[in-house]
């Protein structure tokens, strides 16, 4: 997996993920990236999932773990551009309602201000 972080309006950190979030390949990396942002005091994080090609239960677990650690620090973690199959995978485990999911980046970024 490749990760890169962009600055959005209002201090929102946009994390672009690319590739696989699977066991041994991207799962730990995702957590580390989020942890670093949290340590740096970033509270509002938007994960752009558009280019995530595959996810497995470990990747889903990490997403949930990231959600928890950001929320515990008083921040918000939201998702952007969820591919249909990842949407399905979140839905069957009843996690889809946990995440705020957006289809438009400006809308997503603006939502953090609310």
């Amino acid at each position, binding site marked *: 997996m490749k990760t890169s972080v962009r600055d959005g309006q209002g201090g929102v950190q946009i994390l672009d993920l690319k590739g696989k979030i*699977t*066991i*041994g390949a991207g799962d730990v990396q995702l957590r580390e990236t989020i942890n670093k942002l949290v340590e740096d005091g970033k509270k509002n994080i938007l994960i752009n999932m558009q280019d995530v090609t595959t996810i*497995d239960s470990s990747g889903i677990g990490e997403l949930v773990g990231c959600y928890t650690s950001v929320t515990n620090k008083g921040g918000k973690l939201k998702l952007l551009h969820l591919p249909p199959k990842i949407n399905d*995978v979140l839905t069957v*485990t009843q*996690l889809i309602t946990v995440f705020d999911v957006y289809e438009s980046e400006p809308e997503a970024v603006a939502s953090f201000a609310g």
Partner: protein
Amino acid sequence: MSSTKESSASGPVRMSLSSRFENIEMAQHLCGKLLEGHEIPDETRHWILMALREVLANAIKHGNAQDRGKRVHLEMDVTGEVLKIQVRDEGAGFDPDKVDDPLAPENKFKTSGRGIFYMKTFMDDVRFQRVEGGGMEIVLTKNLAGAKDKEEKGS
């Protein structure tokens, strides 16, 4: 209901892999190849390969504890449109009845515990069995004809 009942031309394919997560893809690749002759929707293929990934990841992680000297044994076959995936590890085995329900409120935010649930969701049947001399054998089945029908009805 589908009336086609071809048996796979290939016969059972067996494979064994060293306990590394990187090898999951090789097995998925082989499974994809095995499914090639069968006209199943891309969606179905995708979920089968995800279930395969989950069962192999468990065998490598929980079963063989990532010991590279231990191997994961895989057998795949399609008979009469039914895909059977059999995975055996060289670990200590476990009691599937003791596995937590990932949908229970207290487990919802756990960072693990969804693999078996996904397997059961995406396949028709998942069976667990301790094998002699330790280790776990998991058999996943999926009726490919049924998958075809479902998708047709659905869309």
